[in-house]
């Protein structure tokens, strides 16, 4: 039987016979799944992308890297039809495509998980996962089937939640996983992930990578954007680097050393990753006296009673897995949620904090975890976003003079290297990482005595990451009290004088001085 099949010859395709029959992968390597040529996009005065060529092959994980505002998200949004390109071509399997909307891109087999969590907060988890492709029976949506499938799907990410509950009731990390699960489940030819791991912890990241490898094996092309370089080296096959909207290089991951990659991205050397020694830690201790002390503050269904103290000039890290209650702790302290037990002392005096406004009056500040919903005010300008907390502190009657506003804004833009043409650009039009910096700037401008940072480096590029850590340390050195939450243990270990470990909404233990290490933290969490 087999003999009857006409033998393949190179003549039919013009390619050497050997390449055709020999290595299947090679054939696919030559025809990119997705190709962009000369993609160009301008927003007002900002040239977001200029002439970007990009190739994605089947079965590869292709990382697109670059500083905040380099144009990564814009590249994706041009591919999926969110924005109209000014010039350039997009080819899918060699044929030009021109999707006018994400809807059309999806129909072409391009599935995307966008940078900010873009799900419908008012709908249930299952509905979000199956929106637009709900299972149907007799032409009508079969929600029961959808729920069951959603449950099963999330199980593969070890997420055991009530899928009929409204999405907005879940933490940002859970929402992120849901978004990823949806995107992955839909991926037909291409999966695009824009900073999917920004709020995930190490375990979740590994789970995601397992899933990505499975997709890869199925020949799906994966475009990954991330600021975690370790993850890049762990999962990607190839790297494209963007800088200021231009492609500055495409390399096989294996052939590009990390330092060279960073230099490519930043266009300069990285600020040396500095000091941080146990000795320094010991020196601070409680020299400044406790600024904040909580005794058994708790809230039913949210947090078990917790004792915590933060001294001036001290950085206290909060560590724990997703859902361990770190954000909740911060919210109770900052008055976003009212505690129903325990007490809070500020500088030794007992105070009642029932709202962020009161917290601000006591010299607190907080960069919340969910920058899109709780942080940035998209319609307002960068300047207004920066001076907002400061203005709120002064009260509505005493407006900050315009000149002063501008001065502060310029200071902050310079200090945090916020990429924006000027201070009057609406903050919502900044790239994700730069929005994060604006929120940080808002609180720095308000000159708090005590600052809570919930995932301050989420979505921040390597350069800025180092800068922000530098800033955190500086603030501390100037006598500010800091409470920092981060899913990156290395970071926590780096700057904390003390680490409080949480699990199941309860304080497990407190590590100080030499005891602070990633191992010790993980051990504390794992201990029964």
């Amino acid at each position: 039987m087999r003999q009857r099949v006409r033998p393949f010859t190179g003549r039919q395709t013009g390619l050497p016979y050997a390449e055709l029959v020999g290595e299947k992968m090679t054939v696919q390597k030559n025809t990119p799944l997705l190709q962009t040529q000369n993609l160009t996009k301008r927003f007002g005065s900002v040239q977001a992308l200029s002439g970007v060529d990009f190739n994605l092959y089947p079965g590869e994980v292709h990382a697109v890297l670059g500083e905040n505002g380099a144009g990564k998200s814009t590249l994706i949004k041009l591919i999926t039809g969110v924005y109209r390109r000014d010039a350039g071509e997009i080819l899918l399997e060699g044929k030009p495509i021109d999707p006018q909307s994400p809807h059309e891109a999806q129909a072409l087999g391009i599935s995307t998980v966008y940078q900010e969590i873009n799900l419908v907060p008012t709908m249930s988890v299952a509905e979000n996962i199956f929106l637009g492709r709900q299972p149907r029976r007799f032409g009508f949506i079969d929600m029961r089937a959808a729920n069951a499938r959603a449950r099963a799907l999330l199980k593969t990410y070890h997420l055991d939640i009530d899928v009929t509950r409204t999405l907005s009731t879940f933490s940002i990390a859970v929402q992120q996983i849901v978004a990823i699960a949806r995107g992955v489940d839909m991926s037909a030819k291409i999966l695009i992930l824009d900073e999917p791991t920004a709020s995930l912890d190490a375990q979740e990241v590994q789970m995601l990578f397992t899933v990505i490898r499975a997709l890869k094996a199925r020949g799906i092309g994966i475009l990954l954007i991330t600021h975690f370089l370790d993850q890049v080296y762990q999962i990607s096959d190839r790297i494209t680097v963007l800088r200021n909207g231009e492609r500055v290089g495409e390399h096989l991951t294996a052939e590009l050393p990390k330092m060279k990659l960073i230099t490519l991205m930043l266009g300069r050397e990285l600020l040396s990753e500095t000091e941080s020694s146990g000795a320094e830690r010991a020196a601070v201790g409680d020299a400044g006296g406790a600024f904040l002390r909580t005794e058994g503050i708790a809230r039913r269904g949210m947090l078990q009673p917790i004792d915590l103290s933060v001294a001036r000039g001290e950085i206290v890290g909060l560590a724990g897995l997703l859902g361990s209650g770190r954000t909740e702790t911060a919210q109770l302290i900052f008055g976003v949620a009212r505690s129903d037990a325990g007490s809070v002392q500020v500088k030794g005096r007992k105070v009642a904090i029932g709202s962020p406004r009161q917290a601000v009056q006591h010299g607190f500040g907080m960069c919340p975890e969910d920058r899109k919903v709780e942080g940035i005010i998209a319609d307002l300008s960068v300047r207004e976003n920066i001076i907002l907390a400061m203005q709120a502190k002064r009260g509505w009657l005493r407006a900050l003079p315009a000149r002063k506003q501008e001065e502060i804004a310029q200071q902050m833009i310079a200090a945090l290297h916020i990429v924006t043409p000027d201070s009057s650009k609406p903050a919502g039009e900044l790239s994700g990482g730069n929005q994060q910096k604006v929120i940080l700037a808002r609180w720095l401008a308000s000159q708090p005595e005590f600052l809570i940072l919930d995932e301050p480096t989420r979505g921040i590029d390597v350069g800025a990451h180092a800068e922000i850590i530098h800033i955190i340390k500086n603030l501390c050195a100037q006598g500010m009290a800091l409470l920092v939450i981060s899913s990156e243990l290395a970071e926590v270990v780096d700057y904390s004088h003390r680490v409080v470990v949480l699990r199941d909404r309860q304080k497990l233990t407190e590590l100080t001085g030499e005891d602070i290490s990633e191992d010790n933290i993980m051990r504390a969490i794992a201990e029964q």
Partner: protein
Amino acid sequence: MRSRAFPLIATFVVFVALYLIGYQRFPAFGTTRVIANFLTDKSFLGIAAVGMTFVIIAGGIDLSVGSVVAFTGVFCALAIGRLGMHPLVAFAVILLIGAAFGAIMGAVIHFYKIPAFIVTLAGMFLARGGAFVLSQESLPIEHSFYELIGDLYYVFPDRGRLTFVAVLFVVVLVVGIVIAHFTRFGRNIYAMGGSRESAANAALLLGVPIGRTTIMVYTLSAVLATLSGIVYSLYTSSGYPRAAVGLELDAIAAVVTGGTLLTGGVGFVAGTFVGVMIQGVIQTYINFDGTLNSWWTKIVIGLLLFLFIIIQKVLTSYRGTFTFRLIPGLSRRAAESKTSASPP
């Protein structure tokens, strides 16, 4: 764990309580007459309100419905009376006109990014003005078909009448519920309204066909408004260019008292039914009482509405602390119980 239908249930409970208070004072409230009257007298409001529910859930608003009702009535009266069309033909024609009207409004809203409030306000002026141009006077409709429909009712033992229009209302309601909850179009509407707030419209990024859905929502609303106009013309056997002034406000009030959020994305068609019935109970109560003069009528209607909303508010937020409810949107995530989960 609290069901997402809880607000709907709470709304219904308050409605029943309100009804029982009426029953306690006027035993006639218990008769099928009064109950059937609720359905018949509120049928056109109810049908229009079902359409309004979709628009509001989609994050929009449709102010044109009252005028569309009037235009439909006048059109039917002229088509039947002057042009000699059979009512069914006239209905088909006006439904098509209504659909086109809604589609155009939807298209203008979508493509030209003009706020729905204003586009439909202009639609309201146009339809009402059009009705005036067709006829300034009220026009009686005399046709055997209208009489036939008028005689089509089921009589309960205590002489309550279940009329054709009442049944039609219930049918529209059921179809509305099915569309809202069991079709992709319906879910897309929820998605669109629920993500309107987000800067980069999440529904768009999730692949919801925004343009098509917007146009279809306004078409649906206009078609139902037209149907409501047909029902109104059946109900009154006439067409009157000043009919149903302010019907849109009643419809919106019914939708909102039914638990749908004007910010979009959250709500139930069934809730709208309760909202409509609440207006019926309030009105009937005042009519039965008969001692209120014109201004006290207004004051009492408003205060009952107020009372109802406050009770509903208290019931639906019994769990959240007061602080949470002060900030729109805050309540949902923070105040709802977060079941403690074990880390993976």
